[in-house]
């Protein structure tokens, strides 16, 4: 356990250095030093300036990022007349919930939600299954031409996805060799998400950091590659699997152009809200937007830590 603090290790997800000082006490004790020196901050003048700046930052950020969401959350409780009133009202004058029920039924929110959950869930499962297997193979089993394949996968990260939409669309209308038409089936969302080079890159880098001795020990005990993957590699990889899963779900949830053209009669939440938007009264539209935002916001608040860690997991620091 003595190795636990021996400088930057190669773990992908864990923070690589001491957490940023959360309070002034820690900052003064010299945990981390940033742009402004702790000495300066502990002087009376510095402390005053800091307090003012902090208050301003909190105010501006809250207004800029929570303000719109607040407006969205309360907007549904207002009447359409109240929403377009001058001057605007900060609180609903006669809060009513019927905009929410109307939004739910007019948007077909239940159906949209179900579709999106099915798309995101299936995409997640397939991604975990195939991308983990591929990354494991590329990292530990090292097949012939493995590096070439990895290189070609990574090169596809450079391709702007939107530029390939036309041939991709034609491909899913008539899958080569088997001639299946995948349009309006969940497969059309699920399968392309597997071709995610970033996932494979992240997973492979994580697997690379797992010592081979561990795998060899398991192999000597008679475990085949599948068993090694399942009983040794995967339990060690929980953090990175969490990251890949969350981003996999969010990517499907937020996608627009692809579901717009490939699943026109089983729309996702994102596309469906847009389709219905033009024909809805202002207040139920706002209520609908709020309802549509709840699932991912909830997901975020629950998995906040993993998501934050995942953003730095790209190892972008070099």
């Amino acid at each position, binding site marked *: 356990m003595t190795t636990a603090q*021996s400088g930057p290790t*190669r773990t992908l997800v864990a923070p690589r250095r001491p957490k940023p000082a*959360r309070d002034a006490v*820690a900052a003064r004790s010299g945990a981390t*030093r*940033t*742009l*402004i*020196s702790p000495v300066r901050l502990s002087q009376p003048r510095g402390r005053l300036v800091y307090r003012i700046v*902090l208050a301003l*930052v*909190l105010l501006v950020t*809250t207004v800029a*990022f929570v303000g*719109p*969401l607040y*407006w*969205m959350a309360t907007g549904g409780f207002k009447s359409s007349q109240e*929403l377009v*009133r001058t001057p605007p009202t900060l609180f609903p004058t006669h809060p009513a919930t019927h905009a929410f029920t109307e939004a739910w039924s007019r948007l077909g929110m239940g159906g949209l939600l179900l579709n999106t959950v099915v798309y995101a869930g299936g995409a997640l499962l397939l991604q975990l299954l*195939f991308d983990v297997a*591929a990354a494991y*193979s590329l990292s*530990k*089993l*090292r*097949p012939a031409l493995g590096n070439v394949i990895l290189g070609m996968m990574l090169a596809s990260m*450079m*391709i*702007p996805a939107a*530029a*390939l*939409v*036309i*041939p991709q669309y034609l*491909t899913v209308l008539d899958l*080569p060799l088997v001639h299946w038409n995948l349009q309006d089936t969940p497969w059309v969302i699920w*399968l392309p998400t*597997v*071709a995610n080079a970033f996932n494979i890159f992240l997973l492979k880098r994580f697997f690379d950091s797992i*010592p081979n001795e561990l795998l060899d020990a398991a192999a000597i005990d008679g475990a085949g590659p599948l068993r090694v993957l399942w009983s040794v590699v995967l339990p060690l990889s929980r953090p990175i699997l969490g990251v890949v899963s969350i981003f996999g779900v969010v990517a499907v949830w*937020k996608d*627009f*152009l692809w579901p717009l053209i490939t699943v026109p009669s089983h729309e996702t939440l*994102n596309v469906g*809200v*847009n389709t219905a938007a033009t024909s809805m009264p202002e207040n139920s*539209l*706002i209520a609908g*937007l*709020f309802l*549509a*935002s709840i699932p991912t*916001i909830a997901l*975020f608040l629950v998995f906040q830590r993993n998501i*934050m860690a995942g953003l*730095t997991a*790209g190892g*972008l*620091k070099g």
Partner: protein
Amino acid sequence: MAVTLTRGPGRVDATRAGSRGQLAALRRTLLRNLRAHAFLVGALLCFVLFTWYPMIREIVMSFQRLHYGETQWVGLANYRQITADPEFWSAWRNTLEFTGVALFFGFAAPFAAAIVINECRHAQGYLRVLVYLPVMLPPVAGILLFKYFMDPGYGLFNQILHALHLPTSSWLASKNTAMPSLVLVSTWGNMGSATLVYLAALQGIPGELYEAAELDGANLWQRIWHVTVPQTRLILSLMLMLQVVATMQMFTESFVLTGGGPEGSTTTVVYLLYNYAFNYDKFNTAAALGVIMLLVLGCFSAVYLWVERRGREA
């Protein structure tokens, strides 16, 4: 502690095996490879089907046309058609305008936000969550919300501007302000992820550097310019490239907010591509546009890599 053990393909102990064992070793290598490829095949198939094959197909079909149900080679006709369309040039202009403005704000804003948040000794977690919150919305929800805010009449933005006795704007309704309005929406919705990435990079800067700079008499701006920026240069340039590639593909904001208008001022390249395919039913011309887009962004990536490498050598 760095563990970078690699396993060469020749890990099978062929050397120790005698000449008699060579066949068995070969068989073992073959079997091992087969098994490794079996793990790879699912993902590989998806890449082939949805990335590599479409790419080739796009290039091929950009030289073809469907004529009474028959595919014909038409040379550069599709390219001539698309470049003869005045919308083609305005779409590129619009896209570049969006990219330019979005970079100006979308690049500076998250970096500034990250620097400020990093200096906060309190409420850092709260600030981080706030900045990232819009990223988690379904994009259409955020976009439509801003459509309501940006209404020239009753919209919240104009009401606030009016109350502050500032000039109001026609936002999406005028062709001069439509594109900047889209940038505003897109920056609000997306800056969170860049901010958090920068924040992580900032926390990697050793405090001694600031200490030394301060001893040398560097003021706040000099410390930012001579310590913070160089220390995060690598990630700044990477994010710059990612952002250019992302903003060049802008579609959703235009589609949802303005439908490409007013007067085509927010029709982006991807929007035009979508129109050609799904409104004008000209898939091959759309493919030609797709190839042009691949080429432009490919050139951009190549230039980026070249500059990046030269920067590292220098």
